[in-house]
C-alpha cells in the first residue's frame, strides 16, 4: 500500500545501516585474526550502498505501485554489496606466533580502529535519524486517521 511507502523507505535505510554496523562489528572482532577459510589473515569488509529506484530490485518491506502521485520518488536504499578491502596485511614481528613466517613476521589484518569507530558512529547517527523520520511518518498517518472524527 502506498501509504506505507515513506515508512518502507526509512525501513530500508534502517536495515542498510544495521548491516553497516554489523560489518564494523565483524571487522573489529577480527582485527587480530590470522587464519580464515580463504587462507591468510582476515581482510576488512566494506558495505556499498546504492539507491533503490523505480524498477530496480524491489524494496523488501513493501511492494509499491509505480503509478499516480509519487511516481519517481526513490524507494530508499539498499546495501548492494559487501566488498573485501584488499589492502596488503600489516607485518608484525612476532617469532613466537604459530603463523609467523621464516623471518618471524606475522601477517595481521590491516584494520584501523579509528576508521571503524568513525564508521560505527556515522552508521548509528544515520540509524537514529531514520528512526525519527519513521516516527514522523507514523504520526502523520495517525493524524490522517483522525480526519472527520469528532
Amino acid at each position, binding site marked *: 500500500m502506498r501509504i506505507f*511507502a515513506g515508512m518502507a523507505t526509512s525501513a530500508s535505510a534502517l536495515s542498510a545501516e544495521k548491516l553497516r554496523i554489523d560489518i564494523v562489528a565483524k571487522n573489529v572482532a577480527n582485527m587480530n585474526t590470522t587464519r580464515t577459510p580463504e587462507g591468510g589473515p582476515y581482510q576488512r569488509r566494506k558495505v556499498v550502498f546504492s539507491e533503490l529506484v523505480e524498477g530496480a530490485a524491489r524494496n523488501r518491506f513493501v511492494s509499491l505501485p509505480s503509478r499516480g502521485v*509519487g511516481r519517481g520518488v526513490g524507494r*530508499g536504499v539498499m546495501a548492494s554489496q559487501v566488498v573485501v578491502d584488499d589492502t596488503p596485511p600489516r607485518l608484525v614481528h612476532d617469532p613466537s606466533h604459530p603463523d609467523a613466517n621464516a623471518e618471524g613476521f606475522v601477517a595481521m589484518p590491516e584494520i584501523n580502529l579509528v576508521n571503524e569507530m568513525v564508521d560505527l558512529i556515522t552508521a548509528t547517527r*544515520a540509524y537514529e535519524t531514520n528512526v525519527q*523520520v519513521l516516527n514522523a511518518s507514523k504520526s502523520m498517518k495517525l493524524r490522517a486517521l483522525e480526519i472527520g472524527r469528532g
Partner: protein
Amino acid sequence: MTVNINELLHRSLDVAALRQRTIANNVANANTPGFKRSFVSFEEHVQGAMARRSLTARDLQPRLQQDRSTSMREDGNNVSVEHEMVLMAANTVQYQALAQQLSSRLSLLRYVINDGRR
C-alpha cells in the same frame, strides 16, 4: 475554473505525504555515494496561479524535482540531514494543520446535515 476548498485541502494533504516520502528517501540515502536530493514543489505554483486568478487543476499537480547543482561531500552526495530534518518538522506541522482544517470543514458539514443539532 474555481477549485473546491475541500479538493485543495485534499491535494495539499497528498502533497505533504509525498513530501514526507521524498524526505524519507533523501535521509535514507544520506550515505549513498553520488545520490542527489529530490524535493517537491507545489505551494509556489498554487500561489502564483492564485495571484494570476487562474487556478486550474494542472496547478494542483505536485512537481518532483531533483537538485543536481550542489554537492555536500566529495562523493557527490548532496543530502544535508539537518536541512531534511527541518523540512520534515515543517512538513509534519503542515500536514497536521491541513488535516485539522479538513476535519473542521467536515464537522461544519455534519452540523448542517444534522439541522443544527449536535
